[in-house]
């Protein structure tokens, strides 16, 4: 039992077995291809087809059967002759008569669609001159880099040079001698290329507009491919950047952890936010913080490896472990965070008042104490008394940078009584009121009066190696009405509700080292000098004060 196919040759219907049909189909394809370069191809092939139909009819009548079998087709082909027979008989007769016959070893310039970066121009040129494409590309790259003429030439070639569409185009491009027996492809493919061959005349003479249209279509097609190609490269680069950043982050995290846990955190407890952390929980807190930061960075790196470079995998179990570890660490971090925050739940404040000796001219100079304050231990260790006799050790840290947070606030208010006084209000925080009060008591502040000069220290002192408890001090200077207060510029950062800048502007003295204020009924007011002489006076007074 065999499958039969119904075919129609010039209006006559035949039943033909599938195998026989395959042979006939291939034969006709070869024949059509062979004559495709001839101007009379249609007439010749029609003649041949008609003759085949006639022979089929004769065979069917003679043998009194209905279906054409393989044997019939073979005998007909034998009688009609194969393409090689045709070639042998005609030989060179067709070659010179037909300019489009590619059956020679001459090369034709095509754009190569099989080996291209953009339009296949370089590959085509390489094929034409039988040079490795790399050199052509290199030459174009150099020409583009040196002035851009290469780009222009490339686009021109892209427009002008046709793309190798059919197999014969490709063979002609590569200078391969066409072997008609070599064409063993399916019928549709062959037919389409056959049509291409026939319409080659038209294609050669196509107007420039159509070529340009093809070019633009081609251009965007290739551009898309190019972008897709380079896109991959960019993603790879991005992946490398992510991996490097992750690696740096991991190393930094590990170094930080070792620094804090391994060598102890005492060195760093002056810096916010590490100063908050009490030593009791420090190690646990830092470890949790480390894991909370470490796990996501590691996960991102692993995912980058998997996603972009397709190396390594995060197994389901590994992922789960990561998640659990991370969640546990986060929970513990929050727990210790709350524990540490509890140390700041209560605040306490106590106040003490220091009397200030009144001066004759009712003027006070407020200055920043820039003398280094030594604790008793430090003083003994450095042997200050012997080594720095009659000398002043200047404290470079008076700007307050070393403490990070401002702990001193200075206010100036009107006093109800005649004598001036300074109110020192200490405050601190703690887990409960007792702790907070204790923390506040544990601090000290250095204030000194030298005649009319009031020296304020830049910071609140506390014993070293104690955790931070938001200790602060508010200094309220109360002076009677009409008291003159000269405030040094260096105190600017510690003042509350007093603007030295505004006062300077009002006096048109941008670089004055101090500003003069007077206590009025409505609080402290800037003293604006309207007379130049008065201003000179004040400067004189200033310099006199500075000399002290």
């Amino acid at each position: 039992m065999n499958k039969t196919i119904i075919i129609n040759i010039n209006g006559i219907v035949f039943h033909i077995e599938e195998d026989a049909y395959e042979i006939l189909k291939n034969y006709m394809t070869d024949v059509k291809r062979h004559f495709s370069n001839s101007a009379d191809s249609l007439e010749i092939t029609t003649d041949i087809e008609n003759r085949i139909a006639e022979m089929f009819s004769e065979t069917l009548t003679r043998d009194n059967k209905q279906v054409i079998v393989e044997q019939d087709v073979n005998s007909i082909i034998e009688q009609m002759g194969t393409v090689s027979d045709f070639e042998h008989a005609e030989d060179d007769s067709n070659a010179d008569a037909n300019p489009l016959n590619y059956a020679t070893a001459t090369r034709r310039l095509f754009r190569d669609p099989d080996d291209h970066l953009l339009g296949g121009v370089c590959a085509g040129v390489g094929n034409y001159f039988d040079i490795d494409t790399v050199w052509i590309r290199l030459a174009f790259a150099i020409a583009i880099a040196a002035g851009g003429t290469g780009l222009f030439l490339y686009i021109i070639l892209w427009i002008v040079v046709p793309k190798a569409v059919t197999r014969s185009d490709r063979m002609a491009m590569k200078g391969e001698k066409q072997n008609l027996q070599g064409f063993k492809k399916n019928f549709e493919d062959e037919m389409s290329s056959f049509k291409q061959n026939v319409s080659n005349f038209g294609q050669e003479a196509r107007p420039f507009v159509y070529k340009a249209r093809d070019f633009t279509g081609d251009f965007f097609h290739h551009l898309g491919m190019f972008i897709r190609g380079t896109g991959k490269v960019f993603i790879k680069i991005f992946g490398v950047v992510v991996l490097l950043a992750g690696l740096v982050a991991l190393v930094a995290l590990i170094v930080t952890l070792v620094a804090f846990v391994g060598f102890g955190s005492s060195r760093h407890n002056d810096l916010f936010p590490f100063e908050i952390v009490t030593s009791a929980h420090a190690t646990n807190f830092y470890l949790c913080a480390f894991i909370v930061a470490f796990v996501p960075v590691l996960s991102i790196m692993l995912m980058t490896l998997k996603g972009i470079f397709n190396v390594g995998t995060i197994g389901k179990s590994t992922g789960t472990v990561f998640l659990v570890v991370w969640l546990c660490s986060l929970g513990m971090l929050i727990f210790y965070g709350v524990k540490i925050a509890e140390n700041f739940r209560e605040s306490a404040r106590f106040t003490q008042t220091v009397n200030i000796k009144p001066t004759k001219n009712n003027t006070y100079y407020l200055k920043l104490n820039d003398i280094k304050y030594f604790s008793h231990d430090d003083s003994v260790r450095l042997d200050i008394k012997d080594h720095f006799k009659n000398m002043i050790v200047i404290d470079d840290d008076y700007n307050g940078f070393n403490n990070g947070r401002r702990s001193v606030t200075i206010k100036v208010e009107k006093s109800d009584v005649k004598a001036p006084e300074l109110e020192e209000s200490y405050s601190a925080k703690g887990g409960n009121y007792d702790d907070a009060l204790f923390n506040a008591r544990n601090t000290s502040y250095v204030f000194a009066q030298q005649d009319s000069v009031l020296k304020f220290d830049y910071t609140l002192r506390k014993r070293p190696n104690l955790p931070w408890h938001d200790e602060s001090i508010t200094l309220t200077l109360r002076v009677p009405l009409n008291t003159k207060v000269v405030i040094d510029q260096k105190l600017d950062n510690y003042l509350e509700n007093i603007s030295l800048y505004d006062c300077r502007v009002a006096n048109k003295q941008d670089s004055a080292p101090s500003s003069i204020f007077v206590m009025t009924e409505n609080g402290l007011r800037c003293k604006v000098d309207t007379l130049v002489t008065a201003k000179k006076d004040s400067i004189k007074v200033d310099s006199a004060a500075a000399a002290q």
Partner: protein
Amino acid sequence: MIVENTQTQMRKGILEYCILSIIAKGETYASDIIAELKKAQLLVVEGTLYPLLTRLKNNGLLTYNWVESTSGPPRKYYILSDEGRNVLEQLDKTWEELAFAVQTAIGDRK
């Protein structure tokens, strides 16, 4: 290569002359021409004949008539055109000259 080329050239010229001669006998169908050429051992396969016939026809030496067939599609029956007759007469003369020349040339050798 040269030998093959010469053979092909000789065969080609003679083949066309023979085809014209066969058709000169009267209306002829392609397969009849083939049968005669096979008998004369000039041509082996039928397929090569069709391009030749088409070329001769396009050169104005042949014309054809469509004749209905009982066993297939309509057949092309070829006949010589007036020009074909003139060409054939010239070819007859040329052939006689050639035959004489060849006979003379190879007669001495044998």
